[in-house]
């Protein structure tokens, strides 16, 4: 189910910017599995290749790819650090 088309009031979906148009205001965002859609990028300073969170047709934040890759390891470390608590 593509939740992009449902109520977008809270929902935000990650996608990768594959193209930015000449106005620099809109980008084509790839959500995977063949879904691409235009998003307004005027609220972020994004470049092609960035992953963004898209909400109601607008990119609202750039996702930190490195942080995402390290999230699970960070969780494991936090659990270990909290061993005594």
């Amino acid at each position, binding site marked *: 189910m593509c939740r992009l088309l449902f*109520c977008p*009031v*809270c*929902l935000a979906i990650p996608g990768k910017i594959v193209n930015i148009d000449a106005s620099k205001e809109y980008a084509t965002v790839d959500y995977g599995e063949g879904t691409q859609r235009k998003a307004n990028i005027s609220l972020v300073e994004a470049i092609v290749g960035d992953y963004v*969170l898209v*909400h109601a047709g607008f990119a*609202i934040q750039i996702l930190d790819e490195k942080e995402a890759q390290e999230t699970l390891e960070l969780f494991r470390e936090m659990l270990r650090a909290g061993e005594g608590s």
Partner: protein
Amino acid sequence: MFHLRDKKLANDIIAKIKQMDVHLKFMHVCGTHQDTLVKNGLDTLFQSCGITIGQGPGCPVCVTTPQEIEEMLLLARKGKMVTTFGDMIRVPGESASLQHMHAEGYDIRTVYSIDDAVTLARIHKEKEVVFVAVGFETTAPTTASVLLKHPPANFSILSCHRVIPPALQAILEMGEIKLDGFIEPGHVSTIIGMAPYEFLSTTYKMPQVIAGFEPLDLLMAVWMLVRQIYNKQAKVENEYLRAVHSEGNVKAQRAMKTVFDCVDVKWRGFPTIPKSGLELKKDFTSYNARDKFEDELKPLWDQDFSEPKGCRCGEVLRGLISSQECPLFGTACQPSHPIGPCMVSIEGSCNIEYRYTWK
């Protein structure tokens, strides 16, 4: 990369929480959190660990007041093209919903983005196009961004935007429910960052964790809350590091501050909450449907509009009862014929409960 799955890690977190042997009640304020909790069975899992998690007033469609619904309906009756997000058109007012009015031939359009509503205004220059602007801090900057780019004169907005931290404070001030911590909404926090929550920890000693939307995010956030309580701490922590920066999205905050004033507004189920609504500043009055169509809307402003008969959405939104405690749930009130907004919106707790658990 953004879909976190690790069974062993999940089991380790659950084991840690169980070890702590707690009896706690947390609240979150986000439909997407509720969806993750119920869809993945985390709500019952946490209950088995002694932790109850309820959804507070965290569904923008659900907290929209009956008076705001009547404003939308009246604007449509007066010949405006009313544009809004999908769920909003199904929320029942006293006499109808926007969806019913669409069936009667009134001009109601569902849009994916405010950008689409502006495009409709450009195409239909002969019509007044009103965008019903619903949403929290996640959505308000998108409205602000569009208004800063001078949309056409036949475009206006009916602002139903609200901000989250004052509602959390209202829950605590009302004192109807004893809470041990808040799970803060990840996407709202991408915009506002961490600072706006801090007063809740300093003044009310509330542990808070900003959380993402994967099951592991919520497991981790709950463990972080439990750890704060165990260590007798009350602070704002950020679990959703891959998306939330401590300062938030400064560009979006600036757009909101340029366009909106914080005003006192009612929320469904709540009395007026100080500085919890966003209304357009005077500079943007030509885009404010309440100013532009004041003569038509004014008669509504002195009236009291009641909640649908028997509907307990207000108590659900204040975290006082679960969806299934409402006698209408699953009988008179279902997603196909909702009585209250919590059954309409896919972010409403009744809708989520019905979709995933109701047999």
